[in-house]
Structures are given as C-alpha cells and as structure tokens.
C-alpha cells in the first residue's frame, strides 16, 4: 500500500489528456477523411486508403521515425513551424498528441468509413429529392445512421491513443509530468527492475482499456437488442 501512496499519478493524467486530445482531433479528421475517400474513384481510393491505413500496420517505431523526420527542427517543416509560430513538436506534449493521433487515426477512419458505406444509398437519394442540402443530409441522415460504427471507432481510437508507446517515445520522449505516459512509465520502471510499480500501472491500463471496450459493447448491445442472434 505504501507503493500506492507514494505513486506519482502524473502518467495517468498525461495518458488521459493525450488520449482525449488525440481522439478529439482524430474524430473530425477520421470522419472527414472517410467521407472524402468514399467518393473517390476506385483506383485512387485504394491508394489513398492504403496510405491512411499505414500507421495501423507499420511498426509504431517506423511511424515514429517518419514523424521525427517531419518535425525535427533541423528539417524544413519542423524549422518552419518553430520559426514562424514558435511551435515545438519534438519532446513536447504536442508531440505526444501527434504521435498518438497518427497511430490511432486509422481506427477512427476505418470504422467511420465502414459505417458510412453500409448506410442505405436510398436514404441519401430520398434526402436529395426532399430538398435537403448535402450538409443537412450528412448531419441528419448519414451521421445518425452511421452512429454505432462511429461510436465504436471513437472508443477504439481513444483506447489506442492512450496506450501508444513506440511512436510517442521517439517523438515526444519521456519527460515526467509532460510527456511521460503510462506505457512509457511501465517500460522505464521495468528497466529499473521495479516490477511492483510496473504491475500497478499494468493493472490501471488493463482496467481503463477494458472499461472502454466494455462501454462500447454495452452501447452497441442496446442498438442490436431487437436483432436475432445466430
């Protein structure tokens, strides 16, 4: 119990903050990308989809490498951001969000796209013939019809962003209280041989991740309660 008392809770706080911020950004970007990609002609769609899905398949360290390449202050984009806006990405909380966001983005995008694609096209046609604008149709018809898929996408994105390790450690480093997330904390204390603290953090991660998925299943279960099982 002494361990719990003396525990520095900042990793939980940092992880949660990072997860929330990354999910917020991914939510809009993922939906936007899904809606756009769906309308592309087949060839280009396969290409763009491939690129957007990459972070999910690549080892996170490879993604981290690309991100460093982009945002390092010795590189064009990184130096441009710093000199013009004073924005630092590497070794900052912003880097945390970007790394977690990039890695988790495909989950949001893929789920949103699958959800949009199963929306009955006649609903959209009906909206058009009823004089609704495209934005109205999206907001009032397509989005609600796709909501279950979007909800699960959001929760998965959050869970993934919160637990991200590889890319985050490369881009944002492990600065306690700033960029030190739970996953980095676990790696660090294990290197020190402190299995006790590691175990506590593992349990915390397990509980939060499971709670997220459990909530998702509950909300999905509500919608499918009238469906027969096979």
């Amino acid at each position: 119990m002494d361990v719990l008392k003396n525990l520095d809770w900042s990793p939980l706080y940092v992880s949660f903050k990072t997860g929330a911020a990354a999910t917020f950004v991914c939510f809009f970007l993922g939906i936007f990308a899904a809606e756009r990609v769906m309308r592309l002609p087949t060839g280009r769609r396969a290409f763009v989809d491939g690129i957007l899905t990459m972070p999910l398949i690549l080892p996170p360290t490879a993604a981290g490498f690309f991100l460093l390449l982009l945002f390092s202050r010795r590189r064009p984009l990184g130096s441009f951001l710093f000199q013009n806006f004073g924005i630092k990405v590497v070794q900052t909380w912003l880097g945390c969000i970007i790394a977690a966001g990039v890695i988790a983005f495909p989950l949001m995008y893929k789920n949103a796209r699958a959800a949009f694609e199963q929306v009955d096209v006649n609903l959209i046609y009906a909206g058009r013939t009823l004089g609704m604008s495209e934005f109205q149709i999206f907001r009032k018809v397509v989005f609600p019809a796709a909501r279950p898929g979007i909800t699960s996408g959001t929760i998965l994105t959050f869970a993934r962003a919160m637990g991200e390790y590889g890319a985050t450690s490369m881009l944002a480093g492990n600065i306690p209280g700033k960029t030190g997330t739970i996953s980095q904390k676990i790696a660090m204390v294990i290197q020190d041989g402190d299995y006790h603290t590691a175990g506590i953090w593992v349990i915390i991660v397990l509980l939060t991740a499971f709670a997220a998925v459990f909530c998702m299943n509950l909300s999905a279960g509500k919608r499918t309660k009238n469906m027969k099982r096979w």
Partner: protein
Amino acid sequence: MAVCIDIKKELEEFSIELKIKSSSNRIGILGASGCGKSMTLKMLAGIEPPEKGRIQIGSKVMFDSENRINVKPKNRNVGYLFQNYALFPAMTVEENIAAGVRGGKEENKRRVREMTERFRLEGLEKRFPGELSGGQQQRTALARIMAYEPEVILLDEPYGALDTFLRDRLEQELLNMLKDYEGTAILVSHSRDEIYRFSEELLIMEEGKAAAFGKSRDIFENPQKIAAARLIGCKNISRVEILDKHHMKAVDFGILLYTKREIPEDTAAVGLWAHEFVPVWGAPQENCIRMQIESRAELPFEWKFYIKPETEEGSGQEESLCWFVQKGKEKELSERGLPDYLKFPEEKLLFLKE
C-alpha cells in the same frame, strides 16, 4: 402536368433509349426486372443523369444535354417513393414528415399535423420507422412526400417486397390516398394487375426501349407488339406464316388459323389469352387444337391446363399452350369430362408485330 422525355443512357448490358410525351396524370411503367424502368425514374428525379437528351416536366426543363442543364434533385420538386420507403431511421415519424417541408416553424408544424391526420398516423408521431408496420411505413413515406408538395410523384415498385395479402391492401390504400392528388404520378412495377388498376397511360419497357406506349386500356386490349403482349401476360404466342388475307399458319402451335378480319401484312405473331379458349366436344371445328394435356395444376380458384402444341416432335418448338379455367365456370367440364379440342375464337386473336 405534361412530362416530356427524350433520353439516352448506356447501361452495362443495354442502353436506355426513350422518347415519350405524356400529359396524363397517372402513368404506369411495366417491365421485367432489370429492364431499366427504375433507372428511368431515377433519371426523372435527377438522382442519375442521362448521357444525352432532354427531360421536361410541365414548363420546366430539368435536363438538357445540349444546353448543359441538369437541375439538382432538390430543385426538381419531385417526390420519390422508394421500394423500401427509405425512411430516415434515426428520425421519428414526425421528423421524417417534416424533413421536406419548406417554410418556417409554424408552417412546418401545421403541415406535419395535417399530414399525420390525413395519413392516419396520429399517435405514432414519436415512433421510429423501425417500430412501424409495413402499412404504417408506407403511409409515413407518402406523408413525407406529400408534405413536400411535389408536382410529380414517382413510385418505384412500392410493394415489391411484400406478400400478396399485404400487397393488395397496401395497393388499395395507396390508390385511395393518391385519389385527391392533382399532380402527375408515375408508377413503376412488374405486376400487370397493379399497373392495370393504376394507370391511364402505360409504357411497356423491354431492355431499355419502349415496347409499347399509349392509353393503358388500349394496350391491354390490343398490345400490338410481341414484347408488349408477353409483358402484359399473354401466355399463348406463336410466330405465324401468312398464307392469304384470312389464313395464317401458327408455326409454334402447329395449326392453321382463320380470321374473318383481314390479317395485317406486318403480322409476325398471333396471341391468345389463356382464358379465351373455347372447349369443344366431339368433332373438331375450325381453329381447333387437339386437347393433349401435358400437365395440369389446380389452384384455389382456377384450373391451369398445359397443352402440347401440334408441332412435330423434335421440331424445337415444345412450349406448351396454356388454358386457364375459372372454377365454378367449369360446370360443363365436370359433367362432360375434358373436351376433345380447344378452339381459338377467331375474334379474340391478337395480331402482333415484331
């Protein structure tokens, strides 16, 4: 509202080419599945663009490839009843009806109330489409369209997915509800009965082309073309060789037919409705075929006999003829047994062109 269509569109298997002008208020489009009839409706609504041509509804040009006009569906003022009704699943009945209403909040409320009353949806306002029966869904979909006050209503096989019992009732209901609608309504269907009840003018489509177009009753009385006859359900059709002005050989039936009427020169086939045969006992008369039963089927209210044609075996033409007899009318049949011959009444023969 006059509807004027002159369109062309390439599809995968065939192309749609239609040129039609109608000022009738109830138009039916009949055709087999996949003949392009739904696509035609979608082009009218602006959901799918034709490649070439012109669409005019009333005085408004909706599409004109030469002048690069293509009015968006939301500005066409056309109501579309989809096969699955396409009610917005996340909206209540009330919200669905309000979806197309133009005007302010007060107007919106008033229209929704008016439509819920007219389409007997009181008490269901707060329900979601998934909680409605098929009939209630249809009424909601119609209420939504009517609240929008369209000049033209397009009905895309509204009962395609229903069983017969429900179908008859919903059809009756739909016809009733459309009675006081003053605009043009176009119904697409593959059911002859539905189309017959509904339409003043009828377009029969085959592979994207018009097989017949005209007053509905006229077409049912005299379909004129082979494809049209087949689509309105004429079962007995045979190619003919014209021998002289009053005699022709029905090749696929294997018999000679005589008519008092002069046979038009361009006649390619002859047709007879399955219930028009006259049974003959004893010696054969003119225009008779031997009653050689291939198979028979008993239906609840009808007997169906399938009769072998008198062509030679192996001539390639073995499609049987159909004779339908309503039960209760076959008294003579039960007393005297099956007839020896079936007579083609010459005044009922349909002359068909290619």
